[in-house]
């Protein structure tokens, strides 16, 4: 029953699963907000890896991983704000946010 006790690998596998699920969501959704939701899922998977490494890996800067995670959360907030503003602006003009109908720049 050794494998039931959580360690570094458990957190890394969990983060990888969240990342892959988010990746599938990004690639399979057509709704721009749905894609944004999936991107947040991917960012959280990566953040979990950062914090798990900070906790378990031998290093002379034990908080570096957590600092990385904080900056990723910051830029995720900025990305969500700008992304949703763009989505709302696009919706005003085109009345749709399905990404395959937004082909204005297609030749």
């Amino acid at each position: 029953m050794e494998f039931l006790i959580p360690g570094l690998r458990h957190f890394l596998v969990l983060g990888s699963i969240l990342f892959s699920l988010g990746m599938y969501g990004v690639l399979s959704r057509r709704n721009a907000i749905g894609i944004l939701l999936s991107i947040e899922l991917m960012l959280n998977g990566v953040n979990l890896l950062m914090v798990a490494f900070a906790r378990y890996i031998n290093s002379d800067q034990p908080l570096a991983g957590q600092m990385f995670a904080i900056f990723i959360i910051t830029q995720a907030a900025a990305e969500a704000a700008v992304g949703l503003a763009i989505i709302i602006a696009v919706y005003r003009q085109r009345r749709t946010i399905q990404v395959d109908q937004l082909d204005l720049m297609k030749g």
Partner: protein
Amino acid sequence: MLGTTDPFTTFVGSVAFWITAIASIAAAYMMVFSIRNLIRSALALTTVLGGVALMYALLGADFLAVAQLVVYVGAIMVLIIFAIFMTPGQIDVPGLVGAGQRLGALVVSLAVLVISVWVVIFTPWHLSDSLLDIPTAESIGGLMLTRYVLPFEIASLLLTVALIGAIVIAREE
């Protein structure tokens, strides 16, 4: 006190890990595969974000756990739900690409999952025995004003620019 010992030496800590992990994966799976309604997707994502916050707490990252709850669950999810409300008629549309691209997406993300899990399991990690000092907020605050002061300032500039830009883009003409 929470965090002065490794929570996974106790039975309760391990059970907390497994319940949170399974709930997070189930919510993420449902969000991606079975839920089509955007509002419900957002709520499933909120469950995942809360689960990740619990994981941070189990990893001894108390400040990050709170920041995750405040920024993600509190701010970003509210923003996303507002955006869903402001784009009516788009909530329930069948929001999936064609079957061919879905198959491709499945193959790509499964490949990413298999490769990263394979790397994770077979890499000989140099593990440390020492635990982080809890609470971490004080040392994180110190680091932000010393070693990480430049990224900190850039991040604050980025947030200012992003918020002003968001207002300008989304404003009615």
